[in-house]
Each structure stands twice: as C-alpha cells, then as structure tokens.
C-alpha cells in the first residue's frame, strides 16, 4: 500500500529547497525548526500556494490537478496568521471549511472547541486565542485526509494547547488521515509520532521525537541543549 501523502521536490524559491517526503495514514507529524528555517514554507508548499514548486499527491491523486470540491477532501491548510478582515460570525467562519452545508458537523465543532458562547460573534472581535480556536475549527471542519496546520498552538492557553493536540489526534484517528503541525514548544513533541526538523531551508532530520531530539542536527539547528532547568543555550 502506498503512503497517504507523497511529496516530490516540494519547495518555495529562496525559502525551501526542493524536498521530498512521504506521510503515512494516522501519523501526527510535528514540524520544528528555528525561526526562518523554512517550517512555514514546507507547509505552504504542501498546501500548494501559488509559489509552490514540485508536486504533491494525496491518496494517489495529484493535488494540482484537482478542483475545489475534491481538494477539500484531500487537504486543509491553516496559515499562522490570526488576522480576520471581515466581521463574519464564528459559525459562518466554520462553514467556510465545508464544501456543502452540514449543520451537524458545525454543531459538533462548536461543542468540540467550546465555541458555543462565541458562535454568533464576529470573528474579528474575538481575542487572539479564541480566534485561533475558531480558525482551527474551519481547517478541520471538512475532515480532509491531510491537515496542514501552521502553529495552531500559538496564542492558546495551556489547557487549549493540550486539548488541541488531543482533538487533532482524535480527528486523525477517526478519519484515518494525517496531520502536519508546526510547533515551537519542544515539550509537546512526545505527543507526536514523528518529527521533521526544518532548518536552513531544508528538512535536516526526520524520525521519531526522541531520535530527532538526540540528533546532532538538532543541536546545530536550535543551538540549545537539555540543561538542569529545562532547555539551556548551548555552551553557555
């Protein structure tokens, strides 16, 4: 059986050199790396933004050859920005994540992400953390096979950081899909199946969390090491 996702030579000029990778069904993959290393570019290239190079197939289908309806089932992308330009109500924002009306799914998401009190409020008037939750809801609404989430845990309080990881795990298990999640908090890596370390515009390490954390590339990329009180700056 082939992998769920096959990416060949994906990259973005000047940001990420062409890289190839495969992602299996049920995998929760963390994307880590220093600022400017290329995490966002990897996610954008996989999401097929206009400047993306290479080719991505999900379930054996070439993404670039699919139209909106099919593509919604294959992948969903959540950018890192929390900006909202228009005063659209939270439930309406969730509906953007669906190709066809599905009130039951919207209700389910409102419960899952505890958005009931915010449901009727315009998304541009929520706090950043609340907006982050609503935007995540939009991205997971369509139950796409591949979730590409750029820093979905930023701006969240500790409860929602842990809760979001659980929600994502449940979605991935239920839909037999996969999630690629960029994260900054290294203490969360144990909750993922696999870690991609992106640095210097390339994927420099790829493997189970404990392996990547112990790798030489990790030290070179992050310039930190385990210390007495959590992480410490290397050589300090």
């Amino acid at each position, binding site marked *: 059986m082939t992998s769920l996702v096959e990416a060949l030579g994906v990259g973005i000029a000047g940001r990420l050199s062409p890289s190839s990778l495969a992602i299996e069904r049920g995998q929760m993959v963390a994307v880590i790396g220093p600022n400017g290393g290329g995490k966002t570019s990897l996610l*954008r290239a996989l*999401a*097929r*933004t*206009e400047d993306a190079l290479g080719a991505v197939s999900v379930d054996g289908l070439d993404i670039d050859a*699919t*139209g*909106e309806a099919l*593509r*919604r089932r294959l*992948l*969903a*992308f*959540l*950018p890192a*920005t929390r*900006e*909202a*330009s*228009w*005063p*659209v*109500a939270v439930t*309406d924002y969730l509906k*953007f994540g669906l190709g066809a009306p599905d009130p039951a799914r919207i209700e389910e998401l409102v419960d899952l992400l505890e958005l009931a009190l915010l449901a009727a409020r*315009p998304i*541009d*008037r929520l706090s950043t953390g609340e907006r982050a939750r609503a935007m995540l809801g*939009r991205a997971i609404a369509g139950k796409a096979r591949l979730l*590409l989430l750029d820093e979905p845990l930023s701006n969240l309080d500790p409860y929602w950081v842990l809760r979001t990881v659980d929600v994502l795990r449940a979605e991935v298990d239920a839909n037999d899909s996969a999630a690629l999640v960029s994260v900054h908090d290294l203490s969360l890596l144990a909750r993922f199946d696999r870690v991609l370390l992106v640095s210097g515009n390339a994927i420099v390490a790829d493997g189970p969390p404990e392996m990547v954390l112990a790798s030489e590339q990790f030290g070179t990329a992050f310039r930190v090491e385990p210390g007495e009180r959590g992480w410490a700056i290397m050589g300090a």
Partner: protein
Amino acid sequence: MKTAATLVLLAAVAALHLLSPFGSLSVARGIDPALATTLLVELRLPRTLLALGYGMTLGIAGAALQALFANPLASPDITGSSSGAALGAVFASYWLGLTNPILMALAGALGAGLALLLLLAVAGKRTEKVALLLAGLAVSLAAGAATSLLLALAPSPFAFYDSFEWLMGSFTDRSLAQAAAALVPAAAACALLLRRARALDLMALGDDVLASLGHRPRRLGVEIICLSAVGVGACVSVCGAIGFVGLIAPVVARRLTHGHPGRALLPAGLIGAMLVMLADFASRSIPLDNAIPVGVLTTLIGTPVFIASLLSMRGRMAP
C-alpha cells in the same frame, strides 16, 4: 427574502425614476399617445437604464474590489479606470472632434484599458495588493492631471465649460445608442464579476488558503481589476464620473450578508442602482436654474456618510 424585498424596492424606484414627472407624460398622452411613447422610450428610458446600470456596476465593482483588497475603503476609482476613461473620452471629443456615442464609449473604454495597462506595468508582475492600490492611486492622479491639461490646451475655448457637466456625472440627453454603448460592456463585466463572488468570499480566509482550495488568487486579482475597469470605464465615458456610490453601496450590502464580502456583490449592485437613481431623481427635483450634476450630489451626500463610517471604524477596525 431580503433579496426579493430589495428587488421590489428597486423596481419601484426604477418605475418612479422612469415615470416622474408624470404630468408632462399625461399631457403628451392627451396630445398624441405616440408622442408619450416616444418621450418615454427615447428620452426617459435611456436615462433610467443608465442610472440603474451605472449604479449597479459601481456597487458590484466596488464590492468586488473591497473583497479583493480586504479593505472597506477600496472603490472603483482606485483602479484609475474612471480617470482613464474620462481622459480617453475628453481626448476623443475635444482633440479628435468625435461625437458618435459608440466611438466615444470606445475611446472611454480605450482610456480605461490604457490606465489599466499602466497600472499593471507600475504594480509589476507580482501584482501584490498594496502595490496595486498605490499604482491605481498614481495612475488616477496622472490621468486626472492629463485630462485637465487636455482641456486647458483644447482648441475649443469652451472645452472646460462644456465638459463640466459631463465630467461631473450626468444622465440627461443620452440616447438609447449611448446607453447600449455603456451598458452592454458593463453588464458583461458585472456578470463575470458575480461569477467570482464565491471565490471572493473564500478570499476572506487569505490568499494562501484560497490557493490551497484550488483557486488562483493572483489571477483572480488581475481579473477583478480588469473587469471593474471595463465596466466602470464604459459607464464613465458616457455619463462621466459618479463618486462614492462604489464605496458606500458595498458597506451597506455587507450588513445584509453578515459581513460576507463575496456574497455582498449582488446586493451591493442593487443598492448602488437605487442610490444612483435616487440621486438623479433628487438632482432633477431640486428647483434651481442650473441642475446640480448627479456626481456632485452623490459626493456631497457621500462624504459625510464616508466620514461617519470612518469614525465608527476607528473603534473597531471593520466595516
């Protein structure tokens, strides 16, 4: 439901615009029914059609541009197409001596097209939104200055005076041929803009998400700019510039669509049509020796509305 109510209201305003003043119509009917029909079809109908179509074009183009730039302050004027069309029409009329309405409309569309080419050249191949916005401003200022220059140096000493009423926006004494010259391209542009309404809604999620859903944000941006330029340019070359409607109508329309920028295109068109017809009706009804040009009236009414919406926006950065 809301759309149906709006349509009924629009039909009522259009009927009012077409039939009033009713007195002269019934007098004409008393003399000769054929005279009343001629009056209605040859004189009143072009005026009503132009006000309706121009207003609708301004509303739809304005809503599309605001959705594209994710900014409630964008409007058709910012593409420079209004100014470009005025420049083309002034050149054709005062320097080439053209009077044929079709040729004038063509000159206007050509002017709008040239302004557009200049806009795309200045904004560059990457066609980023801010670059487009600034380039549009530059083109529209340049075209405005060039229009004044052409008028100042025109062979006819009355050019400035003649052009005043026309450039300020007016629907008086336009023929059915002129109405067709403006409204056929405008209707085509509006139809094509409306087909992009859903993609413009999804643009609220950002260009990258739109691309991930299989759309082409950059191409969509260029298409929106071009279609707006063609539609508004054709109307300007026949009726002159009408300010603020393209700015206000979408803001009102988005209140009906719960903030959805793409879904607001059609209601914005209906509201724009109503605003322009009401403004024209008002300009006819004010008993002055010289009629106030419609464009001046919409700007006079529009400016305080605009300032009020700016003030209400300062607290919460949304329309």
